[in-house]
């Protein structure tokens, strides 16, 4: 079952955040519910592979990223890194080697950077705290190398600068450099370009793709943008209300989606080129329900244009619809 090439494997991973009922509910003995933020997700990421996790807000995509980087605790399932079970590891000393190899890039570079630290200190911080260098020369070398890999050249020009002195694109590069400094094998990037100006996005994407091409770093790229996922990823996983509804190669998901939600997502994405000037935007009705009240059966059925009786009663399992292509839909067969 375990593929030797996989660096990361999630098996039925789940997070249910408990809802503390009010006093009234407790007196009446009403059961407290749970927010099912992530619901039994199976996902693997190979070495040097780029997997995009696509979903709308509330789909749980950021929570998955936080679970993998151990910034949130799962309530069930398994998180395997190189076959080692990391699911419930919480001890800091045990996490240190893990954090050395798994890093995260956050969406808002401005908030992720300490405004009172220089670029050098920001990038040096993980090296110091993980005790990866012995002396100042080594530290300077590693920081320079990381800044250069993130496209900040020449690196020494940036050492003594503060975040407010940098442009938005440069700030995101500093965040990336901080993640790179420890030479991780897996990077979780949570919407790394959505706050950036359009003309800067491609620069940052190039940096991320170069990392994979040159250093064989695996990347879990979290985004709400399907065309962007297609551009950067080898495989795309589509998340709806905490559940993976479809997973497959980037081309398959983009050109041959087999789950009605993926189809709706694709149709809703504004596009230039072939479809430009399309008179009608096919729109899905309604909005994503709350993760505290997940619908019975297939969780997409209340909004699905193709839903039938079985969808309301029984949750569809992932069904293989092609090579490496799964869709959790009763109609996918």
């Amino acid at each position, binding site marked *: 079952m375990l593929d030797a090439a996989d660096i990361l494997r999630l098996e039925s991973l789940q997070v249910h955040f408990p809802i503390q009922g009010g006093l009234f509910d407790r007196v009446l003995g009403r059961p407290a519910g749970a927010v099912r933020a992530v619901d039994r997700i199976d996902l693997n990421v190979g070495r040097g592979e780029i997997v995009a996790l696509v979903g*709308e*807000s509330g789909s749980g995509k950021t929570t998955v990223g936080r679970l993998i980087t151990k910034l949130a605790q799962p309530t069930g399932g398994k998180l395997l890194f190189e076959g080692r079970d990391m699911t419930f590891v919480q001890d800091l000393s045990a996490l240190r080697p893990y954090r050395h190899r798994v890093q995260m890039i956050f969406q808002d570079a401005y908030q992720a950077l300490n405004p009172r630290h220089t670029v050098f200190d920001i990038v040096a911080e993980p090296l110091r705290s993980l005790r990866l260098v012995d002396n100042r020369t080594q530290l300077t070398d590693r920081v320079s190398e990381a800044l250069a890999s993130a496209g900040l050249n020449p690196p020494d020009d940036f050492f003594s600068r503060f975040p407010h002195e940098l*442009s*938005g*694109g*440069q700030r995101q590069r500093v965040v990336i450099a901080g993640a790179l400094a420890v030479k991780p094998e897996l990077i979780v990037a949570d919407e790394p370009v959505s706050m950036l*100006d*359009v*003309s*800067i*996005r*491609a*620069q940052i*994407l*190039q940096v991320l*793709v170069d990392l994979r091409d040159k250093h064989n770093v695996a990347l879990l790229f979290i985004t*709400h*943008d*399907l*065309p*962007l996922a*297609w*551009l*950067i990823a080898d495989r795309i996983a589509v998340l709806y209300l905490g559940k993976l509804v479809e997973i497959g190669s980037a081309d398959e998901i*983009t*050109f041959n989606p087999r789950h009605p939600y993926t189809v*709706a*997502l694709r*149709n*809703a*994405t*504004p*596009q*230039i*080129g*072939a*479809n*430009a*000037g*399309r008179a*009608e*935007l*096919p*729109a*899905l009705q309604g*909005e*994503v329900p709350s993760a505290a009240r997940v619908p019975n059966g297939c969780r997409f059925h209340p909004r699905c244009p193709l839903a039938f009786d079985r969808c309301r009663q029984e949750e569809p399992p992932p069904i293989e619809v092609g090579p490496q292509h799964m869709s959790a839909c009763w109609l996918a067969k």
Partner: protein
Amino acid sequence: MIDSSQHKGSLLEVDGLSVDYGLKGVSSRAIDRISFELRAGEAVGLVGESGSGKTTTAMAIAGLLSPNARISSGEVRYRGNRLPIDHDAAMRPHRWSETSVVFQGAMNALNPVHRIVKQIAEPCMLKLGMSRGEANARAKELLELVGIPADRGAAYPHELSGGMRQRVMIAMALACRPSLIIGDEPTTALDVITQAQILKLLGELRSRLNIALILITHDLSVVAECCDRVMIMYSGRIVEDGTVAEIFAQPKHPYTRLLIESIPNPASGKKIIRPIPGDPPNLVNRPSGCAFHPRCPSAMGICATELPSLDKFGQGRVACHLHRSSQHDKVAAHA
């Protein structure tokens, strides 16, 4: 009231408009001699990155500039009459009745302690002199128009989702039957599917009510879906103006071309990342000549020294020396 006699031709004319912002004694030019016309019922996208001046342009048209802004040249005409855009009180009769604005953060623009029906009814009472009963009826009608069941009018803003709140904002913008709606990134904070719903709604309302639309966005693909025309702004100037079909098929300005190429487009089948080098310019310290020249792959000597004017080119306009030189040659040949 503004003279509403039908002015021949344009609904809105912006003529040589420049706006400066003063901050701690330093003045920086946000937009520089912007000129364009808008016909009744036309939808135009104003596209640019942060700092390109797209929001300043729109806020100037609505007379909603911040107190530290100064209009240093030019004017805005509406149906042929000059708008007092630098005079808040004088603009009041014009706002809502002729021009309304839909802002980006609908959640912040609504009053959290009033029911939405009351908030929509308010401009009707103030502007159209309706009684409370009439205004409430009108508000319910408007809610239905934007696709919200009228009985949801009793809800408070926090009871509605982001997409619903943005619909409420659109209903308010429509309340006094304006001829122009300015949408300032109206879908940026929304999810893809909700965005498609709102864009579809705006398109339907526009054709049904013959409202002109200025859509401010950083997202070219949104414009491709719902505008007739697009103006590309860079560092406070319009660098290209043309129909959507023309600009996407044959962009003239190198910036426009690079911008279009940088959007992932599965339909093209090409997975190539093409970064635009460099960073967007600083407004206080703008590059000489054409502001895009330090990043432009086609830059020539003249680009660093001389500012290209926005000249007619084909059906549209473009501000680039590459396209001017050919015209000069033609003029030279004629002479």
